[in-house]
């Protein structure tokens, strides 16, 4: 397993239910989605043409990219539509809520040094 670090992102109310929001962590651009009963996080860039997944409509545990309607699984990161692109995927990140604060685990390499 790669080394990872939990980062405090924002308070939960900043991510409305069934919507996503983007966050920059080091050199990673991550989309965090609030599914109502849980949070899920992926890389924010659609594997197709780099569309912002955080701006997509959520359907079940997947998101539909706002640019060309590629459907990406938020749990596995895999492309679900179109079918012939199923081997492609986006990175996923563990994310959870602790005392009303959204925390996310990112690889240590993305946040080498901590200041302040």
């Amino acid at each position: 397993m790669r080394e990872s670090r939990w980062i405090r992102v924002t308070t939960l109310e900043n991510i409305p239910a069934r919507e996503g929001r983007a966050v920059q962590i080091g050199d990673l651009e991550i989309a965090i989605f609030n599914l109502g009963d849980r949070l899920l996080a992926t890389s924010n860039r659609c594997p197709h043409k780099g569309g912002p997944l955080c701006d997509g409509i959520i359907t079940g545990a997947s998101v539909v990219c706002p640019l060309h309607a590629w459907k990406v699984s938020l749990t596995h990161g895999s492309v679900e539509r179109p079918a012939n692109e199923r081997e492609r995927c986006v990175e996923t990140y563990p994310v959870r809520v602790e005392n009303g604060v959204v925390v996310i685990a990112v690889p240590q390499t993305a946040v080498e040094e901590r200041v302040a």
Partner: protein
Amino acid sequence: MKRLVVVGNGMAGMACVEQILKYAPSLDDARDAPSASRGAMFRITVFGDETHVNYNRIMLSSVLAGEKSADDIVINSLEWYRRNDIELRVGVRILDVDPVRKTVAGDDGSVTPYDTLLLATGSSAWMPPIKGLDKDGVFTFRTLDDTRALLKRAGPDTRAIVIGGGLLGLEAARGLQMHGCQVTVVHLMATLMERQLDPPGGKFLMAKMKELGIRVVLGKSTTAILGNGHVEGVEFSGGEALEGDLVVVAAGIRPNVELGRKAGVTVKRGIVVNDYMETSDPDIFAVGECVEHRGVCYGLVAPLFDQGKVLAATITGRRGPTYNGTVQAAKLKIVGVEMFSAGNIDDDGAEPVRYEDPSLGIYKKVALRDGKLAGVILVGDTSDSHRYMEWLRTDADLTDRRRHLLFPPPAADAGLDVAEMSDGATVCGCVGVTKGTIIHAIHERGVNTLSQLKEATRACTGCGSCTSLCQDLLRAVAPDFEDEKKKTICACVPFAEDRLRDILRSQKLKSVQDVLEIYGNGVGCEICKPALSYMLDMLWCGDHDEDRSARFINDRVHANIQKDGTFSVVPRIRGGVTSPDELRRIADVADKYHVPMVKITGSQRIDLLGIKKADLPKVWADLGMPSGQAYTKGVRMVKTCVGTDFCRFGTQDSTSAGVEMERRFEQLFTPHKVKMAAVGCPRNCAEATVKDIGLIGVEGGWQVVVGGAAGKSVRKADLLTTVETTDAALEASELFFQYYRENANYLERTYDFVERLGIEKVRKDTVYATDAVRAGLLDRLAKSKARSYDAWTEGQAPRNPTQFTPLKLMEKVLA
């Protein structure tokens, strides 16, 4: 006159009686008949243990799903029984038959003599050996009463368990889910509908069911119903348990043969009949699901009609036609889940030909034997099912058609498919109606709609699977064909949009999530969510619970997303009339935010492209102009010419009229975008004839035209009305505008809408409608308008703190 007693008031018994009446008219008809030879042969008495007139049992799943009412599925009304002088005894169960005295005894104490007895007792739900089936909350799904009992219990938060993953079980599951139940289907076998589908087909079907939000548990044998008096769950053979509040047992059916035994006729699995539909007693006949013919018991509708015809001939003394069995075919009646299976699907000795597309959820397989079709399976696309039924029925040699087994050869025109069918080809397999019969009805009886066709020929009154074929025939042959078929939005919410509008209105539903949970799969998708958002906004004139998560990003941040994730900003410039001051502010904004491109649009507006989401509120504030709604399914703009102000040809002040028109409609949402124009003379410089609504100035007045297009398709707008004043022109526009908002399907442009309805109907419902109807349209439009607001005001008062800005970390990190 002989006395005919029919036991069983279901589809088989009554279909047979209908056939008998054709050969031997009833008393009344006989009295009126010109020839004495057409005398009544029977005095008919019908016993039914249900308390209803004969209804279409296969449509019970549609009643459970809320798509049809109990009245909708009645086949023979009380009036029909009366007219044919049939004595109907409902609510009476026949308990005994005395074949020597030739009487039947009912549970009401009655003893009724017969000369001829027809057993049409059908079948009942088979109850597997499960402990605790007597608990409150255990249901079967065979009758209208079963359906009503289920409807009483089904509701949001109810956890329903359906035992049985066959046709009936899956339809029951979907029906319950439509009422908000969380449904789990428990099936004994390793794949769904294993009698009709091979394992891959079963898997495709399972994926479809899961997409609808129905849980499926396979390979589980239920051993007990848990709970103290009332159902609390079920237990499987491994000891594992599943919690639930109600259980539907749909594990199969068993022919009702008890009366056959009591009558002393030969009974095996069913009441045994020969090819003439005779039992071993010359005065006793049987038809339908209770019979066994050549070792086969049928549980589907088509055989009932085939058997009924033969039996009617035999029973009226015209013994000759024989019943030779029916090709077994099954079709699932769940909107959005197409499944069809026919013939023998075993692979043994057969040559399979397959096609599958998991993404589209389409699976097709045909099994060939000796160059002929033995069986077929279709999941996800059943539009070709009639082709296969025809091949099975005619035992057609397919050697020459090998290249087109799974897809028909491309037709030169849309009507070719039906044109190529022979007149003798069967269209409706349930009732046995041929193409020739339908064409005859269309020509001779003036049939133009599907309902008229059903009335005239009874085609399409069984399982309904020939609907599209009947429609195609009507479309090709009927001079004044009217399409009644309604499209659903998507599989998540399986209702036609007009029906859905009625439901939302009557059930007072005001949020997308409520609609999805009660009438859909609880999840929704990128197609239905924006559609439902629009529908609720329109229905409640803006007074609904708007759910931003259900809307496309453009409607969340009020700008149009571009290929790089930035946005374009188009301020409102009513009628295309701007000022030096506005132009200066636009130029300043373009400089300040380093806008990569400033473009004049085709709609007489200015587009600022390449703006970051986080900059949108500042850009709007600096512009100091309202949103031009260039990003949404809503009112775009009114394009104008310079009209009488400057133009030497202008006959009307089109500029002022256009500006006023834009004021009246701006900020409102519509099924698809609405582009308008006002021109001062028929030279049409602002292209009003290819706009959704156009005002064309003529000498002494205006022409109001609607349904024009110059986009994906090009269509010249239809003339709605000609009026004298600008006020009247604007009012006519308002009537059409609101009518379109209320009646078009989501994403249906006015040009498709007007084309679909025809301009005559549009006129009749708007400008020529009664005062009350017109006042209603204008009133609802005014209400919506009063609640509308300039979306860009959210720049200063965001919906939530992060509507436009990305999240900021609570701790600092360094890469």
